[in-house]
């Protein structure tokens, strides 16, 4: 199902034309209206006039979270405060929060892209949409709300929390579309069962789940528990909120609304673009946003771009499900690996929640990874050969999954450092600047 088939299936060449025109306008606007951007451009010795084709975007400096914190609260606004009609904010776990300002036209666009998302999940004006994302400074609740209103569906602005009431509402109102974080959906299924309500008897037909990282296994679980179609939605406050990308019924990657957002994937170390299909850091540029144009924002999210034609007919490029955060990524011998891959390997071999630490060194010129794994009670044997076997199995499985040969060392339980209940997963001892 399409919200706006003409644009969602637009001819690719035409799309690039629109993108280029909008990119030029946005860059010019950012340069003229935002002193912080002007300074960055001048320092990098680029001018908006240097942008002649889409590839020229690479001349533009990146914007980071740190940049946004520096200009707190309103330093990235390109419109006068009188034109800003709404504010959202991302909670900064470290340092100052990030503020996003929206003009009336930004809110319009937000509703438009969210309407596309919800329609992709099968929402029509006959549906009842329960918004169980938080309403408030967080963008989740309002974003879905604006999209559902554009469609004309009946909105239940439940916000997050009060789980038993959420479930009663679902049952009594006959909610058909659920929007919340995937972990909250699973929690709701559990609570429903506690209340004696079998989740599959609810009228839910689809859900838009996002705002956190999740896996295919979780999708299968949610779909089974509720008997619905679970879709992956992506977005972030710095760009607009939810509504940057969403899965179509193929569920093979999230279509990015390229008429509003320009998508790049870069090597997080070098900043150079990686080729399509290769994983790297997602970088987004807004193409239509007035209140707060965002140029080459480094999301820290790891994904890859899929440009093959999608069976649904949409021409917008897709990104694969978010695979991790650059903060968690380790690059070893040129290969990107993530703690979750190691975790998966250990879990498969040991069968219990793993405690591990990844230590990277560079003894000569080659990176070495050592994975310290806490011996579990379940797998401990008092024979050396069994322990050696376990060690080899772990090494083999980790190599299968990451493609990197590692050395596994078994250590005593609780011997790895933990802070606030969470273990420090990566210790990088490489000195790369000597």
């Amino acid at each position, binding site marked *: 199902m399409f919200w706006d088939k003409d644009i969602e299936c637009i001819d690719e060449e035409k799309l690039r034309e629109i993108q280029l025109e909008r990119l030029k306008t946005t860059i010019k606007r950012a340069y003229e209206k935002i002193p912080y951007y002007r300074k960055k451009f001048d320092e990098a010795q680029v001018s908006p006039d240097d942008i002649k084709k889409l590839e020229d975007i690479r001349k533009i400096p990146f914007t980071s979270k740190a940049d946004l914190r520096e200009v707190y609260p309103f330093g990235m606004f390109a419109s006068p405060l009188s034109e800003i009609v709404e504010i959202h904010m991302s909670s900064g776990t470290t340092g100052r929060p990030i503020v996003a300002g929206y003009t009336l036209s930004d809110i319009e666009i937000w509703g438009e892209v969210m309407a596309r998302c919800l329609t992709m999940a099968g929402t029509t004006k006959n549906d009842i949409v329960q918004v169980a994302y938080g309403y408030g400074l967080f963008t989740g609740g309002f974003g879905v709300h604006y999209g559902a209103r554009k469609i004309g569906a009946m909105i239940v602005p439940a916000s997050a929390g009060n789980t038993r009431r959420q479930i009663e509402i679902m049952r009594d109102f006959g909610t058909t579309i659920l929007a919340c974080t995937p972990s909250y959906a699973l929690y709701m299924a559990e609570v429903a069962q506690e209340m004696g309500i079998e989740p599959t008897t609810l009228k839910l037909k689809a859900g838009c789940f996002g705002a956190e990282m999740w896996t295919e296994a979780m999708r299968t679980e949610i779909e089974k528990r509720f008997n619905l179609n679970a879709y992956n939605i992506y977005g972030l406050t710095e760009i607009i909120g939810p509504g940057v990308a969403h899965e179509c019924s193929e569920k093979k990657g999230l279509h990015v609304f390229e008429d509003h957002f320009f998508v790049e994937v870069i090597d997080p170390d070098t900043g150079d673009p990686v080729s399509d299909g290769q994983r790297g850091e997602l970088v987004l540029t807004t193409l239509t946003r007035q209140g707060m144009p965002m140029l080459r924002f480094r999301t820290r999210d790891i994904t890859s771009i899929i440009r093959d034609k999608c069976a649904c007919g949409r021409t917008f490029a897709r990104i694969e499900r978010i695979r991790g955060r650059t903060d968690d990524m380790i690059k070893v011998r040129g290969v990107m690996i993530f703690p979750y891959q190691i975790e998966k390997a250990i879990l498969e071999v040991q069968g219990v929640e793993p405690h591990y630490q990844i230590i990277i060194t560079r003894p000569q010129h080659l990176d070495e990874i050592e994975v310290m794994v806490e011996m*579990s*009670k379940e797998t*401990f044997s*008092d*024979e*050396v050969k069994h322990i050696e076997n376990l060690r080899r199995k772990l090494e083999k499985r980790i190599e299968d999954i990451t493609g990197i040969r590692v050395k596994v060392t*078994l*250590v*005593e339980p609780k*011997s790895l450092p933990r802070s606030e209940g969470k273990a420090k997963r990566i210790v990088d001892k490489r000195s790369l600047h000597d």
Partner: protein
Amino acid sequence: MKIKQLSVFLENKRGRLYEALKALADSNINIRALSIADTSEFGILRMIVTDPEKAKEILEKNEFTVKLTNVIAMAVKDKPGGLAEALKYLYDANINIEYIYAFVEKSGEKAVVVLRTENLDKTISILQESNIKLLTWDDVLAL
């Protein structure tokens, strides 16, 4: 005829053996036999103690990975060839030994040896048929 042995996983780290033994000492648990299998990275401490269940509990409370394993304790003549003679029976029966170590104390003319093989039941019957004395748990405590 099976004896409970306490096995402890040890990292090759300063003080770990001491800490394990100290924990047992503080709880008044006596060690009758002990051995350590070590590799370059870890060690396995194997012990016969007076109260294996309690020892396991104490060590686990102290964050050690512990396992109780069945072993055999056999008495061999304390003279040249005493142990070799006993092992010959197992060799002839094609039984592989996983590990073997001796008791701290000796009982009279006999030396006591702890043994784990790939097949304990078969080992017990072969040794008994060959008139090798196997120790019961009471025998071990009386040592």
